[in-house]
């Protein structure tokens, strides 16, 4: 699976309240949540994000609440992938479970600037930065995780397997 998009770059400890403020948790669909994604730390995001765009963050991305609304909001906004130095545990599980690929790759984070065009090859575990020409290697997902992402999440994946 190949993903292509422009970089939105943020710092360390991007928390789930930043990704989707709790005042919007009275809604639960990806479409509704996407309209408020990142708004407290980046008011330009919702208006300018394009399908396929890639979020690049620092350490402990997605810390805080267990709200699955956070990866859902990113997915609903069209984000194809999150690359960070490290991820908070619950966010990591939630992202995979809803079929949003996320990769830990500190080198790719260090080499990325806002607006860079990245290409991510999930099977090979490579991230290519078109501006610098650099190719970064990360561990590819094991087959069952790849299966979850291709199915669009753990629920469709499980349903498929129960057939």
């Amino acid at each position: 699976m190949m993903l292509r998009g422009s970089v939105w770059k943020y710092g360390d400890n991007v928390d789930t309240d930043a990704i989707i403020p709790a005042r919007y948790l009275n809604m639960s669909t990806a479409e509704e949540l996407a309209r408020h994604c990142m708004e407290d730390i980046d008011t330009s995001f919702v208006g300018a994000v394009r399908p396929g765009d890639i979020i690049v963050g620092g350490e402990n991305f997605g810390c805080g609440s267990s709200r699955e609304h956070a990866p859902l909001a990113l997915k609903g906004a069209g984000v194809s992938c999150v690359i960070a130095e490290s991820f908070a545990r619950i966010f990591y599980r939630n992202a995979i479970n809803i079929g949003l690929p996320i990769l830990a790759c500190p080198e790719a984070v260090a080499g990325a600037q806002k607006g860079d065009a990245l290409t991510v090859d999930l099977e090979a575990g490579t991230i290519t930065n078109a501006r610098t020409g650099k190719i970064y290697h990360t561990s590819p997902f094991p087959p069952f995780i790849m299966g979850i992402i291709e199915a669009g999440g753990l629920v469709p994946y499980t349903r498929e397997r129960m057939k």
Partner: protein
Amino acid sequence: MPGSAGVVPGDLVEVSVDVVLANDITAPISLREFESLGVARVFDPEKVVLVADHFAPNKDIKSAEQCKAMREFARAQGIAHHYDVGRMGIEHVLLPEQGLVLPGDVVVGADSHTCTYGALGAFATGMGSTDFAVAIATGSIWMRVPETIRFEYTGTRQPWVGGKDLILYTIGQIGVSGALYMAMEFTGPVVDGLSMADRFTMSNMAIEAGGKAGLFAVDDATQEYVAGRAKREYQVYAADADAVYARVVTFDVSDMELQVSFPHLPENAKPVSEAQGVKIDQAVIGSCTNGRLEDLRVAAQILAGRHVHPDVRCIVIPGTQQVYLDALREGLVEAFIEAGAVVSTPTCGPCLGGHMGILAAGERAVSTTNRNFRGRMGHPDSEVYLSGPAVAAASAIAGTIVHPDEVMR
């Protein structure tokens, strides 16, 4: 894993769950996912707990719809442990109080503060809505066996220092990702002497260091707490004598002051003396971190016979109906109201900027809650200082952050 030869950190295991929990904001996504799985019934309605606490009593029409969806699911599935307004409390205060979580349990909750139950010697961790859906469908969940950091607290606590100060200090020392993916084990003579309320407070905030669980050994205090609440058998586990730890950290707390975490991360913990003089607009005393009777007693001891500063809104939120009733019978509620504080029905409310005390731009709160991320309690340009109940109550009186001794003179 009965019959298993044991596990080591890094192993991926499938575990049976004893309790599976969700609330009014995480359940709606879960229920949609559960329906989509095509499973007709939950694996065991006795082991599923649903609590309307975050935006309940319903703060608006959308929240009302979410609570309604959860209520209808509970009825359709015969889930008796559905706690609605009138019976509900803040989930992590309510479940231990009602004896729904016991030592040795494996608990998975669609709420990050599910780690609170580690205080009972249960392995409890937060997950998301999809994991909840799979867990209530199958009764099991996969987990990676975490490494463990053992914390040992020695010395003698200064007056007013409680579980909140110990955990804020700990997070201040190791950082908000200091225990990422790991279990935190709290040990040593200082924690042996803590009340269960203080232990719940510490386990509750393990997630704020990135931890997967915050564990205490089961001792006489635990057994006493559980006695009279447990309605089923339970098993007590202890740390292996030869357990291998990722790290062992020792804190001598004798010189540790009361702690305050500055905006906008829980790791910004400083001694209260360094926060002295910070002007506040609001003080919140409650939440799954500090909404227990013991916390309210500390606050009442300071507020009784004094007055909340005219420029401060002081909001006290008992964690459950039982805590509220006990506080009422002990005269705490009267003391709060006479001091000029408001006392709310149990709700998570202001902690996550939901309702019951939202901050405007430029406003500042001292709060006994667990997170002070940007915008957590309202406007993105508002600020939250985290503290224990003693500092919050004293600051409500002074109008600025102060040590309780400043107002108790």
